[in-house]
Every structure is written in C-alpha cells, then in structure tokens.
C-alpha cells in the first residue's frame, strides 16, 4: 500500500560497517554535525559534510531509501534559493543581476541560500543515515546508559512503534470510506479519514496506558534490555575522530567569525539568473501539483 511508503525513515536491516557501530558514536556524529552546521557559514565545509554523510549512506547500503526520503528537500531547496534571490537575507545595498518582468533578481543572497540549504542537507542526511542503520532498541538502550529516564525512552519507543500501526490503520479507514463512495483524495477526504485515525489513536493510547499500568509498569526495579549494546575499541575510535574533527572545524569556523566565504566565492550573473529560473519553476511545479491533488475530486 502506498501509505507504507509515506515515511521511509525506519531502520534498513543490514550488516555494513556503519550498521555495526554502536549508537553512541553515531549520536555524537549527528549532534556534532548539527553543532558544526550552525557554527559555520563556510559552504565548502557544509557541502563536504553533506558529501561525507552521503558517502556513509553509500557504504551502509541505504542510498535508495535515503534518496527517497530526501525528496522532501525539493520544495525546501527550491523555495529557499528562489526567495534568497528575490529577497536576500543580507544587508543592502543589493546588486541586481537582471529582471524578470517587474521582479529584480539579486546575487547577494545566493551564498546565504546555499549556506542555509547546506545546513539542512548535511544534518538531514547524517540524521537519516543514523536512523536507517541503528536498531531502535539499541538506540534506547544507549539512551538508558546516558541516564535518560526509562519512561521517556519507553514513550519514544512506543511512539515510533505506533507509526506503522497507524499507517496500516489509515489504509483500512481509507478502504472503509471508499466503500461508502468517498472520493479518495482532496479536502473532502480529510475529515472522513482523519477523524477515525485520531479517535483510534487516542483510544489505543488510553488502552495501552491502562494495560501497562495493570501489568505493573513503573514499579520499582532497573529495566534491562534483551539486546545488549557493547562498545568495541572501533566505536571509541569513531566517536573520538568525530569529536576531534567536528570540534576542530567548529573552532576554526568560530575563530574566523563563521568563516564566511561570500566575498571569495562569487556567482556569475548568468548563474544566478538561471538558478532562479530553475528554482522558481521547480517550486511553482511543486505547489501546482500539490494544489491539483488537493482539489482533484
């Protein structure tokens, strides 16, 4: 069912080098990536980070699902770049590189557009690779080792486990409503499909909490996990390399005042013009397709 494909963010089973690394070093890398991405405006660093994360995805064998998940970047990237060209997020004066009708295009914002996009792309790819190569139970066992309360862990785990359950539920509900002659898409489909999903979700959670309490959830004792996470020397190497590399780059960036290369890397006017044309067209297409499917009856 197509709904099953809506959220390709589950773990992809495998036995690659990356799959075998324990969750803690991976979490260090994700947090490090986010810290570094937001402490630098150096696009060379940002896109090298994205490329590195993508290489890891290739090594892990999760390229295809990763690319599927990255479709979300299409509207983000196109809108971000198009808007930065017509309304740069930098101080005036802006240099016009051309006009499309009454619309003036400026080159000044392009660099920042790429910086913002680079931050999103790098962090997203790294986070997705980690999610796709880490068994959820291992992740929660690691959280527990980090003294994160078990109840919080459990809540998170249950939430993730409920996603496929709800996907299946949505499928059944859509079938039930289609059988009553409901058109399968558009605004008219929202209410008949989502009221039962939400009511079902609330009921399920209520029943779950009653069932858990009646089976002694929250009574004293340290919780153990069936899956044990044992760190090997290689995990420590990965963690240390991550900390050192990221801390070095972050420090260098901060010492150079975010290491901005906007004065060094200049974009030709024609490039800016065509970048706008492509980005704006893609974004317009995304909006048109979305609106078309919303109102299609």
């Amino acid at each position, binding site marked *: 069912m197509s709904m099953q494909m809506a959220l390709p963010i589950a773990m992809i089973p495998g036995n690659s080098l990356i799959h075998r690394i324990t969750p803690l070093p991976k979490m260090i890398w994700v947090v490090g990536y986010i810290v570094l991405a937001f402490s630098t405006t150096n696009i060379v660093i940002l896109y090298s980070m994205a490329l590195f994360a993508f290489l890891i995805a290739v090594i892990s064998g999760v390229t295809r699902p990763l690319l599927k998940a990255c479709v979300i970047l299409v509207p983000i990237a196109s809108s971000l770049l198009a808007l930065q060209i017509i309304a740069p997020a930098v101080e005036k004066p802006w240099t016009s590189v051309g006009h499309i009708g009454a619309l003036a295009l400026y080159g000044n914002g392009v660099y920042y557009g790429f910086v913002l996009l680079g931050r999103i792309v790098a962090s997203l790819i790294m986070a997705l690779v980690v999610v796709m190569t880490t068994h959820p139970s291992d992740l929660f066992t690691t959280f527990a080792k980090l003294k994160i309360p078990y109840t919080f862990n459990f809540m998170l785990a249950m939430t993730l486990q409920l996603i496929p359950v709800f996907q299946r539920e949505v499928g059944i509900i859509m079938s039930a409503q289609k*059988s009553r002659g409901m058109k399968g898409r558009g605004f008219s489909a929202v209410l008949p499909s989502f009221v039962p999903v939400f009511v079902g979700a609330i009921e399920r959670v209520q029943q779950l909490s009653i069932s858990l309490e009646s089976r002694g959830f929250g009574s004293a004792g340290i919780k153990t996990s069936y899956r044990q996470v044992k760190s090997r020397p290689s995990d420590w190497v990965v963690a240390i390399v991550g900390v050192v590399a990221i801390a070095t780059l972050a420090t260098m960036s901060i010492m150079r005042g975010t290491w901005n290369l906007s004065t060094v890397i200049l974009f030709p006017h024609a490039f800016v013009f065509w970048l706008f044309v492509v980005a704006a067209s893609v974004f317009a297409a995304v909006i048109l397709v979305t609106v078309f499917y919303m109102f299609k009856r």
Partner: protein
Amino acid sequence: MPEPTTTTAPAIAQLDTSLAIEVTGASYVYPSGHVVALDGVDLRVERGEILGIIGQNGSGKTTLTKLFNGLLKPSAGRVIVNGVDTATKTVQQMAPHIGYVFQNPNHQLFARTVQAELEFGPRNIGVPAEEIAERVRNAVEFFGLQDVVDEHPYRVSFPVRKLVGIASIVTMQPSILIFDEPSTGQDHQTTHIINDLMRRLRDEGTTVVCVSHDMPLLADVVERVIVMKETRIIADASPREVFADQTLMARTNLQAPQSTQIALATVVPLGGPVALTPSELASDLERRLTAHVPSTKITK
C-alpha cells in the same frame, strides 16, 4: 462535509444479469509477492441469496470479499459484480452496487452526528436530498436509533455504534451487502437486530454475503455456506449439509453450532434431522419424548 457529487447511481436494471456475483478463477497475491491469499477461486452468487463464508483466519475470506467491491483487484481471473468487471472500476464506482460493512465501526464513523453519518454514503453516490431523508428515517426506525440521532457516533455504546455503522451502509441501498464479522463484540439484542436485517434485506431482493466465525448466527440466517481453507473454497452447500459434515468441520478446525453438535450426537444416529438452531433441536426432542411418554408436555 463534502458537497453532493454529480455522480448518479448506475441504473441496476441496465446492468441486470441473473448473477449478483460471478468469480471465475480469481487469485490474489499480495503486492509483496510472497503471500498468496486466494488461489483460483470460482464462485457464483444468485441475486437475493444470503451467503455465509466460513474458514479459519488467513483462509482468504476477507480477501475474497474485498475482491467483490474492488478494494482488491484479482491478480488473475475475473470478478463480475452486477455485470460489472471490478478490475475496470474504482471502489467508489462500485459503491452504489455493493456495500461493505467493516468489522470495526470505528474505522468508518467520523461525522458529528449519527444523522450526518447515515447521510454520508447516499450523498456520495448522488441520491437526491428528499430520498436521503426518507432512507435515513427508515434506517433510524429499523435500527431503533431514535434516541441517538443527534449524538456524536463515538458517544454511543459500542453495540449501538456497530448498528450506526451498518445503517450507514444500508442507507446507500446497494443491491449486494457484505458483512465482515457482524456479530463480533455484540450483545444478544444487537445480534438479533442484525439477523432480522439480513432476512429483511433478502426479502427485499438484496444479496447478502456474511463472513463470520459465529456459527449459530450463520445457521440461523444463511441459506448457503462456502467453506474456505488455505486460499481455496473447499465446500459449497447448505448450512445443514456443511455443519453435518463432521469430517469437513474437523479438517477446517471449525465447530458446528452446539445445537447441531447435540443433534449429531443424539438424534441423528437414530434417523432424526440435523438441527441448526436450539428451537429445531427442542422441537425434535419434544416430538420424540412425547412419542415415548405421551403424558409429558415439554415447555420450551
């Protein structure tokens, strides 16, 4: 609330054939490609029949019924419903022909009132407003929903919600109605209403297909039972013949209604009839006992 669409229910007379449902060599393999849910099934259902489908979980009962209304399209073979090949139509296009009552009413109820819920289906298939009002009035009366018409469907008790779910399909007046486990979780009174409904629908010429594990319910109302095992139909006969066949029951891990089991263990070896319901069994026992002890009067 969606606006009424311009789609109108196709004239049934125009599509009229002698068969309500005709399944020829239908197979269904789930998209993963690993699970074969149906394997070369042939089935013909006459108009106005009440058909029961029984079998263990996973035998293909629900998959078969989902082929009827186009929720699933056969991987091989053909499914013709009211003269329409389901493979060429969407579920919405099949909706005026064939209604499907899902097992869990929570999966279909969403409106703010029971009244609005009952109006949703007929409005979708383009029934005129006055007729919708008439159908809803009749359904409310038949199902005894007068006190809850203005209630939110989720505020009423589960058995009543089940009735609302069934009524919401009945108001569409399809010529074929499928019930998936109608009596699961229902009290005696609701089951009784469902039984009555099936008989009334049959009397009005509606074809009823009922998938159920509730053997007494089937014994009471259906005229024909098909038994499914491991993706195939392995028996197709009257409930009396099916439930009396102890080898078949054992082979499919099914249990005949208790009245039938008692009859099989007591009166049948003596040449008595196979009882399907407690009243049939009681009548036979009474007849036998009074024949031996004429002065005894048994009160049922």
